[in-house]
């Protein structure tokens, strides 16, 4: 508000020495205000004068006591409002994009690889399919993010998977109504919208991010994969049943008597009035071939009975066993999610045993079904040998299935909590894995860190234990499939789950499911868990090959080569200069966002900063002898975007070491920084170094000797030549050299002339070829000067970029074309040849046109 009256004050408002650089503004009811949202605020380093030595030493004792866990000494400033530096830029949710909602193809016959991608990618792929050099769909591409945004809002509110097409179409219509585009661009935009609508894949589902995501994905996989496989198997079954029935029909044909004459009559059809059927049947042999045995007929009939009921096996896509307490928010019953499967809830903590019982029950009928298929195949081909096959089929069980046969079996799935498996069910879990029963277990991790002491500072390291890595325990059983993934990377999860389901071995899917029940921003928490190596993602496939290294995949982790992922962050120093820091994201940064661990962090005021406080990542790589005098810290930012240091306790340091240890285990298995490989490389490198040094020395010696020898020889020859030159001028070799040189020059010149003439001819030919009969304009060079459009605006027109092209060569005369070519200031109009042979003065016009063609 301007309230002051005197001259200086009113005019002083016009100048402000300290006014910062202002880039963006927003118009509000209050007037125009700087738009802070668009101006990134970089963390600022504010240092203050260090305190006196005495106070520093007092404080340092406190800090060390905190580090050892002797009790937290909170200093003035509360931890509230502080965020790890790397996370601070992700606080504003509006500007953070993620893979959700994502789209799953609902058409089971398509390739698996293209079945799950983010909606954003589906839209971009669809647009790219109809884009070309001419159709760039620029406006649509710029606004696809709106379609995703609309769908995201809609689907997040519904909190369940829905068919994609109606929602996407609605979002497209919404975009069309919301965005104002005029003129040529509007026409283009409408066409692009129509193309997007007609090209968007029909069968698909959109999945939102929620604690239900894992169930939704899994249910879609069951519906797609199992449905696809079972359809194939049922088709085969139907064919076999048909063939078996044919066999029985032939058998019936072999019967004699009245029936035969009747059959003969029906086989002849309308001609039966011409033939005496009874007489004819009397001359036929009494029986055609031997009848099948009663046992065989029974076997075939049995097989037919079982195979005809094959559909029943696939009425349910799977058998799902889930603990009653599993779905924490209770908004939806899991029974609804898995409506196409058999859903069984259990209450006791005996999930693994329950799953084995369930498997043994349902596999029995399926064993019979598969054995019937095999019997049918042998019977149809006439290869069933009772002496061999009777015994084989009497002992037939599921372990004799092929991979394909097992893949069709509606799987038995156990869904349970990770903590339950690790505590109450560890023995039965291990037993299940070792028995090699292809039961698939989904274990859900929904809480933060494990094992670290909560609510209080640990006084020593005794609270610290090495985490039971359930995935690693499963790997120890070797013939297993293990996926450790998070719902925040749906594509990886989708692929892993599909692969695990297809595998003829027990599978453990250890899934991190961040839910908004425990966290205000679950997605961020999930992201931080993977980023900090607390929950690394990986796959292990014991069936892949006998070589261990090939079974591991850790590629879906950030910066797999490093200990901690490094982030480049811009910082404003205390001298107001910009610097780029490389900051690691560690377990300490991850636990910092969980208030349960607040006692493990101590705010250090900048007046107490000294050399002994060192960044955590550096601290971890210190030599043991240097450790005692140092205390580690992490960088955080406060609400004023100022950088602060938080010292961390020994518990967190140990947690970091423990997590790094597991990360090393995964890295080495996946072939990253493998100890043996590194050793071997070093050994070979040293070996090659010494060998090559020897070689070089040898070659150098030989070379020196050779140089010496040549030098002596040349001196000798030179002396000889000089002598002969002085004695006999006719022997001078220089003359002949001169002649030969000039010959070479002449030859080179001729060759050059030849090349040049050939080139000229080629250019001439090209030019001749380039004369096109149709008139055309070099549109990209048009300067929009209106010369041509003023002559004839139907013949010449402007494109969406306001550059001229020949719209209709027949809309005017050849004279107009030639006039335009002559007038065009940049000479880009090429009139071609006349289209109307009866036009007056054509000869003259063609002559002028030649110059511009």
């Amino acid at each position, binding site marked *: 508000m301007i309230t002051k009256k005197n001259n200086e004050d009113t005019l002083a*408002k016009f*100048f402000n020495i300290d006014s910062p650089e202002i880039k963006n*503004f927003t118009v509000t009811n209050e007037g125009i205000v700087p738009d802070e949202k668009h101006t990134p605020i970089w963390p600022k380093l504010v240092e203050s004068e260090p305190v006196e030595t005495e106070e520093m030493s007092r404080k340092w004792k406190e800090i060390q006591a905190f580090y050892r866990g002797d009790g937290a000494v909170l200093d003035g400033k509360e931890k509230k409002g502080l965020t790890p530096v790397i996370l601070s830029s992700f606080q504003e949710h509006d500007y*953070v*994009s993620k893979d959700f909602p994502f789209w799953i193809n609902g058409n089971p016959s398509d390739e698996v690889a293209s079945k799950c991608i983010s909606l954003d990618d589906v839209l971009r792929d669809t647009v790219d399919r109809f884009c070309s050099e001419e159709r760039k769909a620029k406006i649509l591409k710029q606004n696809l993010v709106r379609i995703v945004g609309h769908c995201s809002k809609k689907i997040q509110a519904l909190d369940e998977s829905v068919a994609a097409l109606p929602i996407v179409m609605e979002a497209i219509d919404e975009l069309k109504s919301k965005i104002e585009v005029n003129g040529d661009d509007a026409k283009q935009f409408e066409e692009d919208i129509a193309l997007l609508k007609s090209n968007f894949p029909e069968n698909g589902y959109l999945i939102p991010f929620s604690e239900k995501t894992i169930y939704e994905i899994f249910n879609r996989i069951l519906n797609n994969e199992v449905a696809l496989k079972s359809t194939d198997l049922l088709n085969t079954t139907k064919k076999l049943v048909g063939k078996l029935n044919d066999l029985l029909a032939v058998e019936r044909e072999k019967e004699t008597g009245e029936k035969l004459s009747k059959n003969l009559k029906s086989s002849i059809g309308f001609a039966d009035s011409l033939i005496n059927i009874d007489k004819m049947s009397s001359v036929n042999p009494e029986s055609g071939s031997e009848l099948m045995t009663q046992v065989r007929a029974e076997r075939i009939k049995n097989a037919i009975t079982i195979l005809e009921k094959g559909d029943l096996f696939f009425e349910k896509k799977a058998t799902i066993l889930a603990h009653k307490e599993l779905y924490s928010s209770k908004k939806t019953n899991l029974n609804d999610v898995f409506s196409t499967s058999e859903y069984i809830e259990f209450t006791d903590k005996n999930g693994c045993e329950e799953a084995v019982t369930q498997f043994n029950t349902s596999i029995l009928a399926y064993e019979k079904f598969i054995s019937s298929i095999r019997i049918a195949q042998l019977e149809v081909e006439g290869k069933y040998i009772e002496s061999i096959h009777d015994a084989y089929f009497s002992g037939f069980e599921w372990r004799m299935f092929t991979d394909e046969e097992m893949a069709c079996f509606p799987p038995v799935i156990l869904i349970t909590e990770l903590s339950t498996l690790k505590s109450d069910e560890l023995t039965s879990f291990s037993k299940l894995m070792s028995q090699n029963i292809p039961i698939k277990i989904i274990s859900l991790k929904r809480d933060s860190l494990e094992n670290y002491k909560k609510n209080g500072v640990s006084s020593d390291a005794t609270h610290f234990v090495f985490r039971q890595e359930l995935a690693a325990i499963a790997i120890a059983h070797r013939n297993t499939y293990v996926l450790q993934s998070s719902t925040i990377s749906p594509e990886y999860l989708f692929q892993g789950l599909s692969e695990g389901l297809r595998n003829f071995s027990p599978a453990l899917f250890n899934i991190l499911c961040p839910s908004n029940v425990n966290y205000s921003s679950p997605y961020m928490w999930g*992201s931080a868990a993977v980023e900090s190596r607390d929950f690394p993602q990986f796959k292990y496939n014991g069936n892949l090959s006998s070589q261990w290294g090939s079974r591991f995949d850790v590629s879906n982790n950030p910066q797999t080569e490093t200990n901690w992922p490094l982030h480049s962050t811009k910082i404003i120093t205390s001298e107001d200069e910009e610097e780029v820091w490389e900051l690691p994201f560690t377990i300490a940064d991850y636990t910092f966002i969980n208030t349960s661990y607040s006692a493990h962090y101590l705010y250090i005021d900048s007046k107490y900063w000294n050399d002994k406080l060192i960044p955590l990542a550096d601290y971890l790589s210190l030599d043991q002898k240097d450790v005692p005098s140092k205390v580690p810290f992490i960088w955080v930012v406060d609400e004023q975007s100022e950088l602060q240091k938080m010292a961390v306790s020994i518990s967190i340091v140990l947690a970091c070491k423990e997590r790094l240890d597991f990360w090393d285990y995964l890295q080495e298995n996946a072939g990253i920084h493998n100890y043996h490989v590194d050793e071997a490389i070093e050994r070979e490198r040293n070996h090659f170094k010494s060998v090559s040094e020897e070689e070089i020395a040898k070659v150098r010696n030989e070379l020196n000797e050779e140089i010496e020898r040549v030098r002596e020889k040349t001196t000798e020859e030179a002396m000889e030549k000089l002598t002969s030159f002085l004695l006999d001028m006719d022997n001078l070799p220089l003359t002949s050299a001169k002649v030969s040189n000039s010959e070479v020059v002449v030859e080179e010149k001729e060759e050059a002339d030849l090349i040049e003439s050939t080139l000229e001819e080629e250019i001439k030919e090209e030019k001749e070829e380039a004369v096109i009969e149709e008139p055309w304009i070099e549109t*990209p060079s048009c300067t929009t000067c209106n010369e041509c459009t003023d002559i004839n605006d139907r013949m010449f027109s402007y494109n969406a*970029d306001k550059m001229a092209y020949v719209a209709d060569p027949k809309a005017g005369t050849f004279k107009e074309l030639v006039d335009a070519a002559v007038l065009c200031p940049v000479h880009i109009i090429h009139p071609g040849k006349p289209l109307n042979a009866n036009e007056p003065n054509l000869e003259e016009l063609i002559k002028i046109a030649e110059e511009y063609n």
Partner: protein
Amino acid sequence: MFGLKLDMACEIPDKYYSLEDYEKAEPRWCPGCGDHSVLTNIQKLCREKQLDPAKTVFVSGIGCSSRFPHYMKTYGFHGLHGRAFPVASGIKFRRPDLDVFVITGDGDCCSIGAGAWVHAIRYNINMTVMLFNNEIYGLTKNQTSPTSRVGTKSNTSPRGSILPPINPLQTTLGVANVSFVAQTVDWNPAHLYATLNAAHEHKGFSFVHIVQRCPVFQPDLVDEFTSGKDAFHLIKNENGIVLDEKAEKTFKNSVEHDHTDINAARHLAEHENGKFYLGLLYQNKEAQCYDDYGAHNLGFTAEQKMSVLNEELDKRAI
């Protein structure tokens, strides 16, 4: 962060501006005039950057090219002869949220407006300046301009002009605090666009010298150039104005140049041996911008502004 990325594109305006949103009235320049080309490329630039027409201002003086603001559907100010710079500086100083473009001709800028021009360079206020130089007074029907070459025959010098012309590039490069000097031609749309784009990106007084012909009074000027392509050299520097491969091929000759070296820039600006160097001649991103020191008056309502203005006027009332 794993699975997350910062995406400023998440927030986008509801209106998409197309070429038509920047077009107004049928330009009354002669057919074949290069002004059409500059106009189209500026409209394309506005569309590309999705500049809000309500937050964009074109300011001009007097001359053929100065009719430019009439053909843009944005704010515009067709000012006094030679006074485009003071008006534009005032606008930008008070309303830093606006995108300011200045259109001036060889007469408007290099003759009557020369004083304002020199000081505008020195103040280095953030605006994009286009000098349309066709080396003739076209609007007033063929008089010699300060940039006409020696020997140019016109109504004011029927036997050919005597004085050597002003070199607008050299003049600009000679003023203290100069921050951006580039040269382009109206008949190469790709280069023209790239140059205007670079000028708009630059924070400060971005001076673009556009070499033109007048199809009516200097029709041979451009013919000389198009038929003598040897005269034009493309300035290449990966941090300067970069053309795509196709557009680069339209130039027969090119030269590497460090646009932070003002002496090298002055050398190129001299057109020695009739050579024209097209591209970014000089740029200094560190030059002081006078508009950084304004309080901008932002956050004040129209009524408050009016009251201050009336207060000031009242003090001087007789």
